[in-house]
């Protein structure tokens, strides 16, 4: 069955006629194409696709969610019945007293000019093959894994709160993993680039140089040492700052965690939680990020200022959690796919730019570390304890205001309530990035996000090493 606004409306009517007080219908269709070369051999050329429907109902303040990939009317009715049966489970259930909404209407497209799915498979295969070989044919490189990824995702959300929204997003990207050996030691470095769109971005991109650069960095890193463990002053580059803000603050500002007491930011609205140089924003559509014009409850995702000049202004919310927190709905209810109910998630989360130039920051700091995002693998936070961590790529010691020797990528850690308060310089060079190969994990779900910011300097961060 074709996924259409008509089908979604029909399903909504059935759910309401079966007794749901309110209902949200989600239709989703996705396509993912990936080509991977591993040490000059094709590891896989895979195309996957999926179509499905999700239905959330509310009965006297209790939600129930079910889904189906089988799109026969019979299977759809079964999913509605399952959702209603769940909403009737009352044992230990949380009851929502009210729901708020800011329903989206209309169609939003962020599609490719040249659909990669229509490009001749041989052209795509040879692009990846060549880049893989370019990265492998370097002294000291023992392994090279090169990927191309392309995703098309179409969504329709219709709700009894008035949402009638449709979107289509195309995302293309490349990645490279290089392993270098130097004597008995080995090091790996990974990096990726992604763009909203399709083949047009690859035509103007030097894939071979991108892959080769990673190999060169891996070869250098294999000869580098790890830093001495301890607490350092550090400048965080525009690539790594996305991980910092996402882990060090983003998750803790998610309204569901705040409402359930699982965030150290609960009760801190109006308080100073960061240096006054810091303004933090979550924005649905922004250059460089992953476009989220509306969320999976069908609410508009606009611009949410979370921290303004150091003061905590608002949390990210869904329609269910907003009234509980006494806030407006910010449109941050997102799900990995129709197989999952929504959680409160970040969209594109970033620190706004400031006044500093990087060379001024370096000169002013004199000694410390310059922490680099290229090669970083990700991060994690325990929002209720208030501790976060993320990895860094090969980075630099800073001595007398200048970049000195390279150090290997390690892990760093800090405290949510201290790290942003310790920011003492914010650059004027904001960058936002997204990735077709990953995203952000929470519960058992992964969603695409964007994150970023300018160069940022912190007075204290814990750096692992041996």
């Amino acid at each position, binding site marked *: *069955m074709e996924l259409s606004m008509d089908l979604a409306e029909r399903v909504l009517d059935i759910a309401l006629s079966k007794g749901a007080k309110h209902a949200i219908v989600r239709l989703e269709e996705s396509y993912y194409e990936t080509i991977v070369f591993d*040490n000059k051999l*094709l*590891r*896989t*050329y*895979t*195309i*996957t*696709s*999926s179509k499905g429907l999700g239905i959330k109902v509310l009965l006297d303040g209790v939600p*129930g*969610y*079910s889904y*189906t*990939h*089988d799109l026969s009317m019979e299977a759809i009715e079964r*999913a509605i019945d399952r959702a209603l049966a*769940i909403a009737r489970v009352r044992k*230990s259930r*949380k009851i929502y007293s009210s729901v708020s909404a800011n329903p989206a209407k209309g169609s939003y497209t962020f599609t490719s000019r040249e659909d990669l799915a229509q490009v*001749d*498979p*041989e052209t795509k*295969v040879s692009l990846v093959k060549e880049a893989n070989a370019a990265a492998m044919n370097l002294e000291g490189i023992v*392994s090279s894994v090169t990927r191309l990824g392309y995703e098309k995702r179409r969504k329709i959300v219709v709700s009894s709160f008035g949402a009638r929204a449709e979107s289509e997003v195309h995302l293309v990207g490349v990645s490279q993993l290089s*392993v270098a050996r130097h004597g008995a030691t*080995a*090091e*790996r470095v990974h990096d990726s680039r992604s763009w909203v769109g399709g083949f047009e971005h690859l035509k103007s991109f030097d894939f071979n140089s991108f892959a080769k650069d990673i190999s060169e960095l891996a070869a250098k890193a294999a000869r580098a040492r*790890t830093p001495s*463990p301890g*607490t350092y002053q550090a400048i965080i580059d525009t690539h790594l700052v996305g991980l910092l803000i996402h882990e060090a603050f983003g998750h803790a500002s998610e309204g569901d965690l705040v*409402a*359930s*007491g*699982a965030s150290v930011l609960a009760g801190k609205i109006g308080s100073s939680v960061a240096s006054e140089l810091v303004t933090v924003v979550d924005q649905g559509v922004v250059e460089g990020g992953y476009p989220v014009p509306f969320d999976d409850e069908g609410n508009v995702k606009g611009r949410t200022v979370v921290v303004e000049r150091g003061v905590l202004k608002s949390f990210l919310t869904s329609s269910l959690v907003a009234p509980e927190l006494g806030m407006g709905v910010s449109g941050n209810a997102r799900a990995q796919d129709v*197989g*999952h109910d929504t959680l409160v998630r970040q969209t594109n989360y970033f620190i706004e730019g400031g006044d500093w130039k990087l060379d001024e920051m370096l000169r002013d700091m004199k000694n410390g570390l310059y922490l680099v995002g290229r090669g970083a693998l990700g991060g*994690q*936070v*325990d929002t*209720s*304890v208030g*501790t976060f*961590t*993320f*990895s860094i790529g090969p980075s630099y010691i800073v001595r007398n205001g200048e970049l000195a020797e390279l150090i*290997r*990528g*390690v*892990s*760093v*850690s*800090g405290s949510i309530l201290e790290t942003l308060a310790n920011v003492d310089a914010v650059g004027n060079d904001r960058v936002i990035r997204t990735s077709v190969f990953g995203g952000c994990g929470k519960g*058992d779900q992964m969603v695409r996000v964007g994150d970023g910011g300018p160069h940022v300097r912190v007075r204290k961060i*814990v*750096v692992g*090493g*041996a």
Partner: protein
Amino acid sequence: MDPVRIAELVIKYARDRGVDEVEAYVAWSDGCTVSITRSGLESIVSGYDIAVGVRVVKGKRISIAGAHISAEEDVRRIVEKAISTLRACPVDEKWVSLAREVGYSQVADIVDSSIAESPTDVAVEISSKLFELPRSLDPKAQLVEGLVGCGHGGKVIASSYTSKPLEMKKTGIEAWFAVRVSTDRGEGTVSDFVAATKLSDVNVDKLVARNVEWARQCAGASPIETGSYDIVLAPKVFGSILNVLISPAVSALNVQRGRSPLRDKLGQQVLSDKLTIVDDGSAPGLVGTAPFDDEGVPTSRKTVFSKGVLSTYLYDSYTAYAEGKKPTGNAVRSGVASPPAPGVTNMLVIPGSGTIDDLVKDVKRGILVINVIGEWLSNFVSGFLNFTVSAGLLIENGRVSKPVTGVVVSGNIYELLKDKLVALGSDVENLGNVYAPSALISGASVAGK
């Protein structure tokens, strides 16, 4: 839709199109997921999933396509999609064939009928218990977050080498939760995870009681001075570290492609003689147990490290045939359309003796590590371990003293698990399919204040 019929259709359509070899991998699941907060059971999700992955081979060219099945006619489309990219795939000279050693091993105890019959009831029951128990144990304790998944699922594999499709079914239950206790020193929060195939293997009361106690001890945690410390790893922390650093290093794919530090180390003493690690996909009733792997090869038991000596790598058919060997029943797919790769089935660490408290008694200055974050950011290629302690307790002269958080522990895993491994406990717990006891390691590098 019947998973066996889908598999048979794939084979028929692909044969009609004249491929050399074909394989259908069908996975289905029917279950329920419940999320819990301090206000009660919040979201309950129940649904049925079925997806297929198709691998086709022609002239040593291999391609894959996969999809959720929305209607029977999707099956033909998926086969066509896989065939459409074949021509573009370069010839892989290392290709021998799809797995030929297909069949079943004898396995027991992987289906719990109470879970299979009513996954939602079981999930709601466990969730309610997790929600109510902390408060009943201590009025200052509460559940902060929880996620309970429960259900049954199965896989069907058919290929050019199966006379009829291989079929298996299994039940499972997983629960993750965090509890908090308020004290006059501040709040303490710890989290824990349980996974099993059967309800009788889940002891929620015992688990919650232990975590309430740990949360109380962890209240008001802070970083400690940078330095060298002995570390006592709780069983699941140790299991997670092995999973991140050792599992990928024994994968024959990573060995053959130059990414494993254990390349050329067969027969060598690479870990402490206190460490014997077995991979056993046929062990009764465990989380990773199945009669066949993700290519249809029967699962088996093999010792991977015998008293610290590396005795074998783990193989799927592709990596085994490349060395003229037989696959070890270790093919794992990360999704229906992912190519198989060698991985662990159940990783079993043979325990030592004594409790975690006995290990603590032997430590002069160290950390009892209860919860970590970011251990998965460790680097198996270099063997470099790093994790951040989110909940831990400082140990001074054989006794736990104050709570610790926000310190980064680092080191080379092949030093930490060789000469620096002091002892293993007898208290095996599982983190998913990794079964490990607690461990005491001396002289780890800790970055703190």
